[in-house]
Each structure stands twice: as C-alpha cells, then as structure tokens.
C-alpha cells in the first residue's frame, strides 16, 4: 500500500517536485478515504487530526450562522488541500466541511506528520513552505472577494 501511495502522492500538486524518499515519508502518514455526497468531512470544534488532498469530486467549506443556516465559504475541487488546522494548536477545526459530490481524497494524519517534521527540519521546512503557499493563495482569493469587484461600473 505505501508503494501505491507513493506514486499517488507524486501526482498531487502540493507535493510536486518532492523526491521519492520524501514521498515515502509522507506516504507513511497517508491513507485513501472517500465520502458520499452530503457526508461531513470535518466539523467546527472537532479535533483537527488530519488534512485532505482532494483527488476526485468537490467539497464545500461552510460555517453555520444561527437563523441563517449553513453558509458556503468556498468550494474545493480535485487537487486542492482541505484543512490546515492540524498545523497549529489547539488543533481544532475552525469550519465545517461537507462532500458536495462523492469525494475521493488522500488523508494525512496530522500528529504523524508533525512528528516527522519535528524529527526532520528539512522536511518540516519544505512542508511548511508548501502549506504557506496554499494559505497565501486562499488569502489572496479572500481579499479579492472582500473588494467586491462586481460593484458599479458605468460602461456595460
């Protein structure tokens, strides 16, 4: 199974360019999972003990607002990373996530990965750098939405 995961991880954009040895290390913390459409993937306040790389299907990040219900924050598709609360204390999810369609993903055990990162600072730096890129990209998209770019324009 770890060998199969190695080749699977090599195709994931988050791990692009990592050598075989590193992929093997990561595969030791990974497993394949699937969620039926509508199934919860994570729930706010629960322990953030993993993160997921989507391989198939789509999922929504959402939050519950009293008297308004669940509000979708973002849709995530194949190739995207779901969850980064496993990185930082208190290791609790800040949002809910739900499978919008049937989802196949690779799950990574957070405690396992944190342990490997502490033992191998090079791996730790590499992984943190890559997650930082994911976070920065999400932050940029969020800023773009905050601008509300579809405001008034006279021409059209």
């Amino acid at each position, binding site marked *: 199974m770890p060998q199969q995961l190695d080749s699977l991880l090599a195709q994931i954009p988050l791990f692009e360019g990592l050598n075989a040895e590193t992929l093997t290390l990561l595969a030791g913390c990974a497993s394949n999972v699937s969620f039926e459409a509508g199934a919860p993937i994570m729930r706010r306040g629960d322990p953030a003990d993993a993160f997921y790389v989507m391989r198939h299907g*789509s999922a*929504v990040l*959402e939050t519950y607002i009293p008297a*308004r*219900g*669940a*509000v*979708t*924050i*973002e*849709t995530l*598709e*194949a*190739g995207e990373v779901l969850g980064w609360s496993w990185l930082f204390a208190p290791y609790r999810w800040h949002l809910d996530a739900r499978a*919008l369609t049937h989802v196949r993903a690779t799950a990574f055990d957070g405690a396992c990965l944190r342990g490997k990162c502490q033992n191998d600072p090079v791996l730790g730096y590499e992984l943190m750098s890559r997650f930082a890129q994911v976070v920065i990209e999400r932050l*940029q*998209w969020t800023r*773009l*939405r905050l*601008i*509300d*770019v*579809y*405001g*008034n*324009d*006279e*021409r*059209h």
Partner: protein
Amino acid sequence: MSVTEPLTPGVMVPQPFRVLTRTQDTYDTFTLTFEAVHGEAPVIAPGQFMMVYVFGIGEVPISVSGVSEHGEVVLTVRAVGAVSAAICASREGSVLGMRGPLGNSWPIQSACGGDVVVVAGGIGLAPLRMLIRHVIASRQDFSAFSVLYGARTPGDLLYLDELEDWRKASDVAVTVDRADSDWHGQVGVVPKLVSSAHFVGDSTRAFVCGPEVMMDFTVQALLARGVASERIYLSMERHMDCGVGLCGHCQLGPTLICRDGAVYTYAEIGRWMGVREL
C-alpha cells in the same frame, strides 16, 4: 465657419434605433434588442461597442452582446447610473440614439487550431457572448474550449439558459463570490477556476473581460499556466465620452481605449494596469 465635410453618420452622429424587446436578466440588468430606424443594420464584430444616447439624459458606451440574424443589435445593460438606468427602463417601441460600432474586436481567428479559454466576471460576460457563440458555431476550428464565469451571487448570473447550451460544446465552469445553502454550484473567485481548466498553456489564447482587479488576478493565473502575455486578450475600460479618440478621457498610458481598444493583449497593456491616476 463653414462645414466642408459632413459628419460621418453612425460614428459622429447618433442614429435612431428602436427598442424591439426588453428582457430582465437580473434585478439590475436588462437585455434589449434594437433595430435601426433608418438604413441598414450595422456590421458589428465581437468585442465592439456602441455609444448609446438617451435623449435628454446622456450617452454611455455599451458593449454589444449579440447581433440577431436580421442584424438587430443586442445590448445587455446594467443599471448603475442615470443613463444606463434610462436605457434599462426603455420600453419596447421607444427610440434611442446610437453611434457605432466602435473600437476593435476580439481576434478570434488568431485562436484557430488551438485551445481557447474565456474568462468573464459579472457583466463582463456580455462583451464575450458573441465570441463564445462564434467559437461554438465554428467548434471544429478550435481545440479545447473553456468558459469560466464568475459573478457576485447566483442571482447576478447572466444568460442562464445559454450557459446550459454552451455546456454542450465547451467546458463551462461557473462560480459565485457569495451564496446561500440553496446554491449547489461553486463558491469562490473566477480566477481560481483557471488552475483546473482544460487547456494547454502554450497553445492557448485567453479572452478576458470583467472588473480590472479580477482581470489582473486572472492574468496571473493564466501566466502561471503557461499562457504567453501576447496571447492573453483583455477588454479594458476607462471613462469614455466621445468614443472616437477626440476627447482623451479614456487615455490609458499611451493609448486611447475607445480608439485603439478596447481589446488589448496583456503584453501591450499590462504595464499600465493598476497604475494610479491612469
């Protein structure tokens, strides 16, 4: 002073056009079909615009969103100011003035044989609609074809019926910035769709229209996918008054958008985008 040459009809002098149909697309956006009251229907290329004059109120540039088989001009207008609101409120049978078509057009032929990706934000889908229809009508001349479209909310999405038709001949991805739980489509910004769209960067031409900030982010995503800046086409926008390169109000760097644009490659216009006071 004596007038030695008559003003060019259609470009300098508004011609009367009658409203044939008026359809409400969203709470603030309407699509109207016009016929020329006198003379022949104008020949319009995808990406061109008309200066639309509401008598007694004013004139604004509106991109052409379609031309019917009988040559009727189709405009999709969002009511955001006095003039555009008056256009949207125009009843069937009423007459408005129009000058045009003005500006250059999307260089569709340059994309033949390669992949095409269209990225539209908000009302920016309107100036791209003719291009999309052209590509679909000549689908065999192009390879992969993607239409990526984003709007503020599901209620702001344009041409919903057509979007479904376009799916038969292209990969259509739609996203909105905000949505309630009854929306089952994507939520997120439209530039994000570029990363998962089906095209090969070095054989792709991209056609982009929307708010400038959205276009800026989209360009960065396209460049990251390997689309050359010379192959990324943007429809630019600045305040236009005359529409024919005389008043200078739509100047952007060394170019006048009404005269030289509104379509530019990113290689041509990128350095001027985001420059303050331009």
